[in-house]
């Protein structure tokens, strides 16, 4: 079993010449522990694939270093890095059958035939592709190609497994099944993996930690629970969570015993000072303008409180999304029961101090989460 620790140190990637090129990855430092699965999450074009390609050795780092187990690898050719990768575009080799595509790395590692056969059988069963093993890549569907490509990566004993959106083409049911199996497979063998995905459920389910990237910058690298409860900045706050966090611009007034958050259209949220850690008050006193984030499921309908006007109301089968107009902006509320509300209805909402996320409106850096400083 070969597992190992990966360390990226201040890695930059610029495509083309430095002055005019695309700065795809900026000053990226992160560490992946041995046996850990890290999910890499971020919007399209944020530099996820570029990061994986630098680790695998298909793109040179523009600056910085990459180490596996303390050995710099960023100047080694791909063949010597001992890294496995499932490609975003599958990249199966057309003249080989699915079976041979999955097996060729093991063959070149000179494993015994019987060993190869049993491993291929195992992986194929895991990914439900036993029935297409003897077909050629051109004659199978996109989702099947994707699983074949994933199998080709998983089957190897590499130091590191890079999986670039390995299940993007699959239907949610199959994805859910495979998710569990793949996690078991990786953990059982103690493999180390980085998984790129657009699916937060997948990131939460598979990743021990989640790295959130945006515009080439690592925004936050943390466990799923931390990302949700303590987003480091407004980007992570709004990016993580479905439906996304409600955001309002606000200014602060500190009174003797209370904190007033002034929103647009003269909406004011009032809290007792005792509901916050004194350091929070200290911090927000210095920042007059801030951004207020509230998770949709944290908004409560109450007998009294501030008023919001219903714009739309949707029952999704397991939860209700109530879209309201509030403080000149949109406030989405999630409830777990079916709610009968019509457009134009006025409702009173309450937002607990514990559910407030405050961000600096200029730097977007988090100031507080609930009663605690960020």
């Amino acid at each position, binding site marked *: 079993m070969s597992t190992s620790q990966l360390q990226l140190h201040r890695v930059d990637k610029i495509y083309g010449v430095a002055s005019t090129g695309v700065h795809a990855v900026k000053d990226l430092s992160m560490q992946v522990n041995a046996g850990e699965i890290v999910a890499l999450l971020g919007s399209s074009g944020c530099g996820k694939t570029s990061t994986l390609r630098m680790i695998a050795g*298909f793109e040179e780092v523009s600056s910085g270093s990459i180490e596996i187990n303390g050995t710099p690898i960023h100047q080694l050719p*791909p063949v010597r890095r001992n890294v496995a990768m499932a490609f975003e*575009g599958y990249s199966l080799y057309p003249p080989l059958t699915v079976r041979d595509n999955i097996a060729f790395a093991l063959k070149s590692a000179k494993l015994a035939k019987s060993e190869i056969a049993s491993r291929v059988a195992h992986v194929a069963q895991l990914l439900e592709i036993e029935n297409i093993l003897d077909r050629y*890549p051109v004659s199978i569907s996109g989702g099947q190609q994707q699983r074949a490509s994933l199998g080709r990566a998983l089957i190897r004993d590499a130091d590191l497994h890079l999986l670039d959106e390995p299940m993007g083409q699959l239907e949610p049911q199959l994805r859910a099944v495979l998710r569990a199996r793949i996690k078991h497979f990786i953990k059982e063998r103690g493999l180390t993996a980085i998984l790129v995905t657009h699916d937060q459920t997948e990131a939460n389910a598979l990743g021990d930690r989640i790295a959130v990237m945006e515009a080439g910058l690592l925004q936050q690298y943390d466990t799923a629970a931390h990302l949700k409860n303590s987003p480091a900045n407004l980007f992570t706050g709004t990016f993580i969570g479905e439906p996304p966090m409600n955001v309002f611009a606000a200014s602060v007034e500190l009174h003797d015993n209370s904190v007033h958050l002034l929103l647009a259209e003269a909406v004011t949220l009032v809290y007792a000072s005792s509901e916050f850690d004194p350091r929070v008050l200290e911090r927000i006193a210095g920042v007059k303008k801030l951004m207020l984030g509230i998770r949709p499921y944290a908004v409560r309908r109450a007998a009294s409180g501030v008023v919001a006007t219903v714009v739309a109301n949707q029952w999704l089968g397991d939860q209700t999304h109530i879209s309201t107009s509030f403080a000149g902006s949109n406030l989405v509320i999630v409830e777990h029961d079916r709610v009968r509300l019509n457009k134009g209805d006025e409702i009173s909402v309450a937002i607990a101090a514990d559910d407030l996320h405050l961000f600096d409106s200029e730097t977007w850096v988090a100031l507080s989460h609930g009663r605690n400083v960020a």
Partner: protein
Amino acid sequence: MLETSPLETFLRGVAILLVILFFMFPIFWIVLMSFQTNETILRIPPSFIFEPTFDNYRALITGKLETNAASLDIAFMRNMGNSVLLSVGAVLLALILGVPAAYSFARHKTRFSEDIAFTLLSFRFAPPLLVLLPLTIYFQKLGLSDTYFGLIWVYQLICLPLILWIVRGYFEDISEDVEYAYRIGGHSWFETFRKIAVPLAGPGIAAAGLLAFIFAWNNFIFALVLASADKQPVTVGALAFVTASGIQYGQIAAAIVLSITPTLLLAVYAQKYLVEGLSLGAVKG
């Protein structure tokens, strides 16, 4: 399927027939000529009716040309052999040099790679006659004139740019990730080139090779100037039929038929690859 009316089918047939007649007539006429004597060829008006004779072919194959005036030796079969040797040699050499070069141009783009590739292509722009004089002088200095090696070297200049430019396009069409997938599977770039890139570009390489072969085979001017009689290919050898006692049309026709046969056979054999190669899609990962 779209329905086509019988009339449309018929008109299409006629159109195709006309095109075939137009393009094939000269070849058809030459084939007819090759079975005639000079007298029947030159009669006026020309006619399709004649008594076929194999004399022309016999003369070419035995190497004895009987004219009304005299009997002279011709080296047609030797010319054929030279053509095969020169063309095959040149294409092989150009493939050995050109395929790796094309791969490198396709995969490793540097600031100058486009310029270098263009320079190589520009050899094709220069009129051969302009190149010939200096080349003759160099060849004499180097002791290369009238050697097979020297001739293949020159022929290879005709083939290399073609192969380089065509094959480069095919390599560019192969998804790089297919190669990367193979490389991180534990293979060096050279293994990847040999086992992944070359097989995937195979149809393209075959097509380029065939085209280069035809160009080399049809070359006239370089061989005319740089080679002496015993190393000349058919294109130059055919001049021998313009004799003091007249032009031997029948034998020229037979010589043409024989000399286009290898290329024709090759083209028919390689047709599958050509079609595959020209419809690129086949190599996309």
